[in-house]
């Protein structure tokens, strides 16, 4: 065998073994050069998030003051557009590289990283440096991972979104209807929704819908849980769609589309925000983070609580975003310091820009006029009340897979009336369970 043949055979053998393949890939990537991370006496941190459009604000108003207060620490800000942050994070992790010392992540992505033991346990730092009640610490739940151990916290929540009812003031004014408020029940939603569903061309297809209903998660889960149903069992390991209260709630959801006809399947599933912005729907039941879509529009809008059930029960699906410190960060102490700085020292006037339609988890920030009254002014104070009294999280590993590719297609068939609620519950439950079984098994 020639040297060439031997070398080729060695590379092939190496490639065929998974660890070998990883080493091979790493070797190749390392040979492309690398960043020198630490110079003498100087700590260099990398912060990674997707708030690209506010890059300058971050650099000027947060990182510059942080560096001035911490001589010897420099921070490099890395950003990517929001739709690419998961891909960028994963490719960086796959190459064995160092993504960042501090990274921002949504709760669903966080679950994956927690499950794969990528993140540092922040609880020792929290116990040392955070005063009880300084933050809305009920949001820690989703960052403890499925094990829910009190001494574990793998991401520190920075902001949270809640499911709310957005409404278009102009369309309500045109219909001479009073705006929705915190007293609304789902019966009110249907009653007013019918008045706001208008078929101008009289062709059987409304030109304006009363409601756009986010059937993918925020709206669906909020209504399910408000009406006493639930999507998953208490341990979040299985679907629980076939339980009688859940079936009843699902019938209610199907009726919104099929019987009451106040919501459209297309606007609810695909063109959610576009239809609201284009004034094709008067209300939208969805996550408050969606307010970012309304920035720069001339729409007159506001938000209120999601309606309550006739028995007075009210729930709002919560979702959080947090900062995580990867386990392989060489400077966890400095990264933690930066994390605290971002959450507690961000200029109040920047917080609403920073988190857009979301609510900061830092209590003093939510009480500040700078956050409550920053344009566009709307009922921000309701978010605080909603979070305290009615919010609930829902998280599992494999969430995006069971939601996007398994639950959503089934939901569509149900709200289109192509599948009965019972059939939907059986089929969607089976598909969700298949993903969950695998996702939990992979631990």
């Amino acid at each position, binding site marked *: 065998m020639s040297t*060439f043949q031997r070398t080729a055979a060695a590379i092939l053998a190496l490639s065929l073994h998974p660890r070998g*393949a990883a080493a*091979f890939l790493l070797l190749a990537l390392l040979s492309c050069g690398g960043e020198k991370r630490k110079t003498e006496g100087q700590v260099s941190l990398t912060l990674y998030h997707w708030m690209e459009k506010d890059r300058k604000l971050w650099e000027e108003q947060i990182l510059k003051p942080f560096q001035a207060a911490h001589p010897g620490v420099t921070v490099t800000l890395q950003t990517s557009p929001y739709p690419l942050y998961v891909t960028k994070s994963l490719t960086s*992790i796959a190459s064995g590289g160092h993504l960042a010392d501090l990274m921002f992540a949504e709760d669903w992505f966080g679950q994956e990283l927690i499950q794969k033991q990528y993140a540092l346990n922040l609880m020792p730092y929290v116990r040392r440096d955070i005063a009880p009640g300084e933050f809305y610490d009920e949001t820690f739940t989703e960052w403890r991972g499925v094990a829910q151990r009190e001494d574990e916290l793998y991401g520190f929540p920075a902001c949270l979104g809640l499911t709310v009812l957005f409404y278009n003031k102009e369309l309500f004014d045109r219909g001479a209807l009073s705006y929705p408020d915190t007293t609304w029940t789902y019966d009110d939603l249907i009653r007013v929704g019918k008045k706001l569903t208008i078929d101008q061309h009289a062709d059987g297809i409304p030109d304006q819908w009363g409601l756009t209903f986010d059937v993918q998660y925020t709206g669906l889960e909020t209504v399910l849980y408000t009406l006493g149903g639930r999507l998953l069992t208490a341990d979040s390991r299985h679907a629980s769609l076939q339980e009688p209260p859940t079936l009843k709630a699902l019938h209610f959801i199907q009726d919104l589309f099929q019987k009451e006809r106040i919501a459209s399947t*297309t606007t609810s599933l*695909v*063109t959610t925000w576009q239809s609201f912005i284009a004034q094709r729907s008067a209300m939208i039941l969805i996550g408050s983070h969606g307010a970012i879509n309304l920035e720069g529009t001339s729409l007159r809008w506001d938000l209120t609580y999601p309606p309550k059930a006739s028995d007075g029960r009210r729930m709002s699906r919560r979702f959080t975003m947090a900062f995580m410190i990867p386990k392989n960060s060489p400077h966890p102490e400095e990264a933690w310091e930066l994390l605290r700085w971002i959450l507690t020292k961000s200029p109040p006037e920047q917080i609403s820009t920073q988190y857009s339609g979301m609510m900061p988890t830092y209590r003093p920030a939510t009480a500040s006029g700078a956050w409550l009254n920053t344009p566009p002014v709307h009922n921000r104070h309701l978010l605080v009340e909603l979070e305290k009294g009615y919010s609930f999280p829902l998280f599992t590993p494999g969430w995006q897979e069971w939601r996007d*590719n398994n639950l959503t297609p089934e939901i569509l068939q149900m709200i289109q009336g192509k599948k009965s609620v019972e059939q939907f519950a059986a089929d969607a439950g089976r598909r969700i369970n298949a993903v969950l079984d695998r996702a939990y098994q992979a631990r």
Partner: protein
Amino acid sequence: MNRIRSFRTLEPYLYLLPTIAGLILFSAGAVAASFSMSFSRWDIVTSPQWVWFDNYTQLWHSDLFWQVFWNTLTFVVLAVPLSVSASLALALLVNTRLRGITLFRTAYFMPVVSSMIAVALVWSWIFNADYGLLNYLLRVLFGVRGPAWLDSTAWALPAMVVVTVWRGLGYSMVIFLAGLQNIPQELYHAATIDGAGVWRKFRHITLPMLSPTTFFILVITFINSFQVFEQTYVLTKGGPANATLTLSYLIYQDAFQFFQMGKAAALSYILFALIFVVTLMQFRIQRRWVFYG
């Protein structure tokens, strides 16, 4: 003397070394690594585990995989004949010596070099259910209310086919045009003298003489259609309700959204096998209809 001789023997290999090294490192190495990955469970963050054929059997038993498989086949079955016939028609149309024909040829080629993002933006507007050009024309000309093209489970895939065909038209047209211009004019002259009409000349001269070009375009279009990704990514993200989810897009989802690199690698090899079999069949069948005279 011997040293010089052995150096001479080695010399070509030395010149080839950078290419060979590049191929091994970036092609063969990657192919081997991804093939081995298809037999492993790898969530990207933790170490991979060898699972033999688990990924393949999981796919075989997955409803989603079969839905995506049929979506991809439907896309190919619709896109390939449309694309090939439309580009041939266009090539015949621009194969004239009219003044300003270059302008038309350039115009038809423009979509090929346009950014897919820009293309998607324009087509999203054309297909928009409420403000789209297509539905406006349907309403004004025929009094018909068009569907929500990209948002409907029935129409999203055909709409994606239309965009794909439109985008690839110019590329195939240019190749067909080159093929058309290589057909000896004497054949047409002789046929004219023999009294053949336009259709008979097309049927008995153009099509057979163009068959090697057609074969090439068929192979390329089949491969590109099986690998459709960009259009899915920018127009529909596989929705609504997985109606436009194709194999390439599922590979992307599994790898970079669902943390299943092993499954994504297995899917890649299934796609490869599919393309390989179809291409092989095309090469077998071409003996019957491709004329290399």
